[in-house]
């Protein structure tokens, strides 16, 4: 399997994927006229002998891909069974491993990480253990708004590549401004919204005082069938809104329920979305 980008980016180092740039691989790509200053090593002398014209042999260049996984590690991710955060980490690890195998440049970050050093940049299959060690250190509890998190990320990583944002998007300030910020970056953005089953089908009864785990906001409800129906409609509208928003802006959106195993998500759902091949 490999990670696929719908855009072809210029890598920094030689990798395993074909680049738009012509380079130094063994695979022949094209000829072009010699212009002064070209590397004489690439002149096709056989052609010169036959046609008495200088042509330059162009070879395909193979580059690496920058793969970023951005995990939301706010408190709200610490719900569900398995927790959404755990699910996000598994997903990031799976995608990261695919990238490592294809010699891509893999970097896994959390929304709250503001130090460059905190998240290692990984390359090569042997870096798997460093990646998992880093993921183990990711804990919930850093409540940073989506906008701030993405802004910080963008400031830290100006490069191009694939960004997989794994979050529940439950931000009272809304996800729109954060996503707009992302659009301005030259990134191939995949948004994976992770929701736990208790959010999709809340199993609650009675008179309840709902306390937000992040800002301790209180909402009083009396559970009734219409209320639950309306909640489900609100959730569906929210999900549809996010999908629509992403689609309009060339981002790919996927809803992931923690009930769906990560391997199935990667091998089936994301393959259909075109993130992996």
């Amino acid at each position, binding site marked *: 399997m490999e990670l696929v980008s719908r855009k072809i980016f210029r890598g920094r180092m030689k990798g395993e994927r074909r680049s738009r740039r012509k380079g130094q691989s063994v695979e022949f790509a094209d000829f072009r006229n010699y212009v002064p200053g070209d590397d004489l090593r690439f002149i096709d002398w056989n052609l010169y002998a036959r046609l008495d014209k200088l042509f330059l042999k162009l070879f395909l260049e193979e580059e690496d891909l920058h793969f970023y996984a951005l995990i939301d590690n706010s408190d709200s991710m610490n719900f569900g069974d398995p927790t959404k955060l755990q699910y996000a980490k598994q997903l990031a690890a799976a995608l990261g491993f695919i990238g490592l195998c294809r010699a891509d440049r893999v970097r896994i970050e959390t929304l709250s990480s503001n130090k460059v050093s905190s998240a290692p940049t990984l390359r090569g299959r042997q870096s798997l253990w460093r990646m998992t060690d880093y993921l183990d250190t990711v804990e919930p509890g850093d409540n940073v708004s989506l906008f701030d998190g993405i802004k910080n990320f963008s400031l830290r990583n100006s490069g191009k590549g694939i960004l997989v944002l794994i979050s529940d998007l439950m931000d009272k300030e809304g996800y729109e401004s954060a996503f707009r910020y992302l659009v301005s970056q030259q990134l191939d953005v995949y948004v994976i919204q992770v929701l736990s089953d208790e959010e999709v089908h809340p199993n609650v009864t009675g*008179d309840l005082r709902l306390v937000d785990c992040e800002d301790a906001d209180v909402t009083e409800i009396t559970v009734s069938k219409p209320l639950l129906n309306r909640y489900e409609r609100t959730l569906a509208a929210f999900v549809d809104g996010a999908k629509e928003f992403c689609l309009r802006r060339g981002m790919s959106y996927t809803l992931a329920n923690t009930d769906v195993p990560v391997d199935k998500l990667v091998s089936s759902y994301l393959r259909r979305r075109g993130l992996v091949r």
Partner: protein
Amino acid sequence: MNQFFSSPLSSPQWLLFALVPPAIVALYFLKLRRQPLEVPSTYLWRRTIEDMHVNSLWQRLRQNLLLFLQLLLIGLLMLACLRPSWRSQSAYQDRLIFLLDNSASMSATDVGPNRLEAAKKKIDDLIEQMDHGDAAMLISFNDSPYVNQPFTTNKGALRKALASIEPTSRTSDVGEALRIAAGLANPGRSGEASNPDDVATADAKPADVFVLSDGGFRSVPEFSWGNLRPIYVPIGEATAANLAIVAFQSQGNPSKPDQMEAFVEVENFSEIDQEVELSLSLDDNLLDASKITIAAGKMQGTSFSFNQIESGTLKIELEIDDDLAADNVAYAAINPGRRAKVLMMTDGNDAMEMAFGTSSAAKLAEVTMMSTADLASDDYQQIASEGSHDLIIYDRCSPDDLPRCNTLFLASVPPGDRWVQEEEAIGPIIIDVDGSHPLMKYLAFGDVQIARSQPVDGPQGAQILMDSDAGALMMIAPREGFEDAVLGFPIMTTDDDGNAAANTTWPRRTSFPLFCKNLLEYLGNSGGASQQLNVLPGAVVPLRFDEAGDTISVTSPIGATTKISRNRNNAYIYTQTSHVGIYDVNLDKEKVASRFAVNLMDPIESRIVPQEVFETAWNKIEGEEQFKPSRRDAWRWILFFALIVLIAEWYIYNRRVYL
């Protein structure tokens, strides 16, 4: 309250009760303690309830659904405590008297499970609707009344007494029960009713009398309702069908001395012709069977012949499944013959002496003669006081004191002022003879002429056996377990010369020897093949045994044994004849000495179609056929509904999700 509500709660209790709903509302507004629950984000919830507030009134109501259900529950409980009911305009008085017929005909099964149970159910409904403080009294009656429960306000006691009423095989007579019922409503007077200064001994307490019966009463009660308001509830279906054995008797066959005959008569009380099989068994062994067809409303008889037997139990059974089973079987006990001891005080009565002198009469009785002059003799005094004889006949004479036995007076009356001899009448014409009395059965008087007679008038309770245009010529009256019969004319008389002469043509008619036979059999308590005591259930049976000791024991068909002591009249009085069947009499020995049968051979009880009108001597009360207790309590239904509300509340509280 009013007639729709009759609350069992007092005002302070209501006041306490009324505090409950405000308390519930107050609790709802004060607390509503919501359970805290931590969620990932209230973001979506907040947006959800913002949407919901658009139609908030209904939402608010839905949110307080439990409160409304609780208020509804309390409201229903309060309504139930008001005890609302539907009641007709004619509310009953606060004193009720239930007269429940438990005679044999009430065992009919035309209304399920039987009439008595149906009547008990109706009484139970009436007890149920009694108001707080209403008093009721329960009297069951058959041939005699029994107060099962005196006036009480205790419904439990009434129900218990009601449940204890069992069906009987007895006949029915409502008169005495009505008199008991009237006891409080129509209090007795201190003196004569016509006295203007008279005052009632107590305040009259009016009451409603419910008579639950099929109306088959022995006689029309001479009764005035007074302050009682009668409500007659006929029990039973007009279509009730019944076939009954109304007569069963066995006797020696006069033409064949070694044979016996059993006569049975069956009456069809239904409206269709019926063919039934009759089976006769002796000591539970089938003797004979016969099939007869009886037209609707008619009587049909048949007879069976069988070999002479000394003693045993005959049972005749009607093989039919009709509405009343008790009269489909009849018993007859055949006892070893017993000869009566008869004394005749006469100065010469050829006719009777001849009749008593026959061999047939000798089989029945041992008749001794004494002259009227012997009335003062010690022999006579001893016989009279000992009660060793069964019958003493006084021909134109009268003793100073009545003897301890049955008597027949010819042209004289017993001593004392109870019996009155009226003025002499010449050539009286016999109008009527009571053929149903055993003394007069099979007798025809159409060709009998009488020269001189002195009509008689007996004491209260006397029965006229022979009536003429001049007055009663023959009467019979009970006396302390004995019976006195008086014939108002002499058989023989003496003419002016002192010679015996016939006063009537009777001795030359066939009815005379028959009368003598009846006399020996009935008043003489004689045996013979036809000596069968046949009594109705509930009747008193006097038993006489010369050789018995001071006590005898009687075993009833249900196996209950009663010991009876000899009374001063030399008889044993057995009263517990409630059950139909054969009663065995033991004279302190293992062996059964005698038997008698108790049969429900009573056309009044067997005619089970209920009477539509209850008739007393002065009133006719229409039966309320469609009678239903008019007050219908609703509190049970309200409580039931409250229970449903409670269940709904519990369910909603636990599974609120579904609403």
